């Protein structure tokens, strides 16, 4: 079967390398160091008091449904910038199978133009 050494080999890409085992060893050691440092800190807190409630600048907490920020509201600043292209692409996905086949015909035509026509011209 596989020799033991091959387990330790570094992945060479010709431009760089990556050895997960070294990283994992480093992570484990760093984790131990950090856990020791963290161990100096205070561990407990008063459970069930008002300090465990969500901080809302003193406002009362809404019901849980409204406290959860829904998926489509995430990444506002980002989608703000990309909205134009997302809307464009959404329009492309009509969900109509005729359009899918039309895309196929278009791509065939493009490939046809790019592969066959230039050779014919030469």
């Amino acid at each position, binding site marked *: 079967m*596989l020799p033991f050494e*091959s*387990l330790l*080999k*570094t*992945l*060479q*890409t*010709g*431009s*760089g390398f*990556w050895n*997960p*085992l070294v*990283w*994992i060893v480093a992570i484990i050691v760093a984790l131990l160091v950090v856990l020791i440092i963290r161990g100096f800190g205070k561990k407990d807190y008063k459970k069930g008091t008002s300090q465990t409630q*969500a901080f809302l600048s003193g406002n009362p907490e809404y*019901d*849980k*449904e409204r*406290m*959860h*920020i*829904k*998926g*489509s509201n*995430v*990444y506002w600043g*980002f*989608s703000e910038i*990309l909205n134009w*292209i*997302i809307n464009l*692409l*959404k329009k*492309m*996905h009509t*969900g109509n*199978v005729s*359009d*899918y*086949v039309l*895309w*196929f015909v*278009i*791509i*065939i035509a493009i*490939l*046809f133009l*790019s*592969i*066959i026509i*230039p*050779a*014919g011209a*030469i």
Partner: protein
Amino acid sequence: MNALEFFVVNSPIFAVAIPLLGAFLTPIFGMINDKLRNVFAIFIMIITTGIVFALSYDVVTNGIRTYIFGAQDLSLPVVRILFEVDAMSCFMAIISVILAVVALIYSWAFMKENTGLDKYYTLLLLMTTGMLGMELTGDMFNFFVFLEITSISSAALVAFWINRGKSVEAGFKYIVISTIGALFVLFSIALFYGQYNALNMAIIANSIQFTFLDKIALVLLIGALAMKAGIVPLHMWLPDAYSKAPSSVTLVLVAATQASLYGLLRLCFTIYGNMITLSPVSIGWLLVLFGIVTILLGVIMAIAQTDLKRLIAFAAVGEIGYMILGIGTGLVTMSPSISAAGLTALKGGIFHIMNDALDIGLMFLVAGAIFYATRETSLDRLGGLARNMKYTTAFFIIGLLAVSGLPPMNGFASKLLIYESTYQLNPILAIIAILASILLLAIFVKVLHSAFLGPALPRFNEVKEVPKSMLFAMAIIAGIIIVFGVFPDIIITNIVEPAANALVNNAGYISKILSLTGGA
């Protein structure tokens, strides 16, 4: 000859025949007992997996294997159906069987409440048969037949939840797209047959002249297989089909998509392998371009999705782009022989085929688990599930790290290979690839937040962790992801590199058949 040798010698046909026979035996067992049927289906698939592994081991150690159907007299190679199995076929077959086994295990609990499960298991095994056939065959027409077997069974499975309009509609779209694609594949096969009087891939590749008709065949085959493989802008059926099918089916559907991708690879590297440089427009650059567009579109569309399964489906489109990018870069540098960077890119692309199957597969299984537990896939209605579904959350986090290619998961290894080779072709390619991978991270972190984190929603107080068989299925994939991530070099040296070399070495593929048929 003892039984084991017999199995190894005949493994190419057994890999296809056993699931095929098993598929039609399953309903008989189903008449006796549901549990027995499930066990039987899993048993059949495990045997197939064993055969595929034995075959792969044999191919990697002893070189290309052929299997001849019918009489051994090869004076008429035209009418013989030949299976030709090289390392690349094995690589794809391994992916297919792993995903099929996992899907069957997952189905045990996931599909339990459905009726018509006899047909479900039959179709699932039939689909696996089709995929394995596509990957192992060396005959163009045979490829078409298996393509159609896969298409029909998977379309039926996509529409399996027939009480939902959307599922039926997605199944219909899928079968229309598949049929049209397959018909053009058949048309191209006819073009080959008309010119070279052969259906065998190796014989066609040997005598191909890149005439006008060959170019038409190339165009049609690239178009049709690209559509089946979900390359932008022909990907549009994919989110529909992936998101509307039951999760266990989606998992196998990922493998079916990749089987079409395998067809594209065979086409570019083997059949047109000698001629690919003659094309006025580099096919390699064309694929690179497709790859970049696919990555960007898949990822950007995924940002905008609010339905979990549709989101993962678009992420899958993006991941397909990475494979195409790596493979295209390999193809660009093919003339006259592949460069070191090109080979690295090709290895990265091929490795990413497997990683994508595992990562996206795990994501779909998690989505299925969420659906099983909450009957909900919209991200706007989920939340706080990490309290009730600890293991699923953990598997999701593993999948998240893997899909976005963070160390030390398998996705990082393959993406590293792609980045560190494509930049030599053009730095922009690697930049876009890196950017898209970070966008993928953002997308899945959004899923993590909106499905698993956040306050405990009262609606989901009663939600329980999914049954053990589903957890086990997810654990298998997560385990493979971690092993591949921690020991990437072993996987690349022993599985990926032989596959890449087999793909590049089309002379070896051709001469193997020619030596059998006496140079016909």
